[in-house]
């Protein structure tokens, strides 16, 4: 058993109902694979540093999980089959990690952008 951080980027076009339905599916999947959720966070819609699937913005969700290492592939496969998920990432963290208190700050990277757009 170990602790894992999981970040998901959802498409910003999703309606609220679709999002909640997706999240409940994701939570059910965690239960099915034997991962327990320690912390769940909504980082709201943020600007992406580069477009993914032609989307400039994404809705970030953060999960702190406790699970076995063998569940990693199952979770990855589950995310691959869902279309509105733009990106996902699972990272192993320290066993005493409690997760961040607040979402990361917004940073701008368009110093050069004006010249080319």
């Amino acid at each position, binding site marked *: 058993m170990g602790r894992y951080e999981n970040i998901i*980027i959802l498409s910003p076009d999703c309606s609220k109902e679709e999002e909640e339905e997706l999240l409940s599916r994701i939570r059910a999947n965690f239960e099915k694979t034997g991962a327990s959720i320690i912390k769940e966070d909504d980082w709201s819609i943020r600007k992406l*540093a580069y477009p993914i699937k032609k989307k400039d913005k994404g809705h970030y969700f953060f999960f702190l999980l406790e699970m076995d290492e063998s569940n990693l592939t199952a979770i990855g496969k589950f995310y691959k089959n869902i279309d509105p998920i733009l990106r996902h*990432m699972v990272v192993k963290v320290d066993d005493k990690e409690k997760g961040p208190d607040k979402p*990361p*700050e917004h*940073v701008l*990277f368009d110093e050069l952008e004006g010249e*080319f757009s």
Partner: protein
Amino acid sequence: MPRFTRPSKGQDFQKKRVYVRKRVCRFCQDSSIAIDYKDPKMLKHFITERGKIMPRRMTGTCANHQRKLKEAISMARHIAFLPFTTLSR
């Protein structure tokens, strides 16, 4: 009359010394700064305005922390906190 006069050793040494600036690793100096991929504001100091990772000789980071920085930056790029390049848009 000689065309070219070579500076004496003492002068040469002094001239070079002007450009040498002592840099120290920020993370070794202040242990409260954690290298975290979820902190794009901190990582932004270690990439150029084009989005490349700055070399150790420019930032003065020690080898150990530079390796951890590299990992954090590549993870932040995957989750779209940092750009691969700023010309992509």
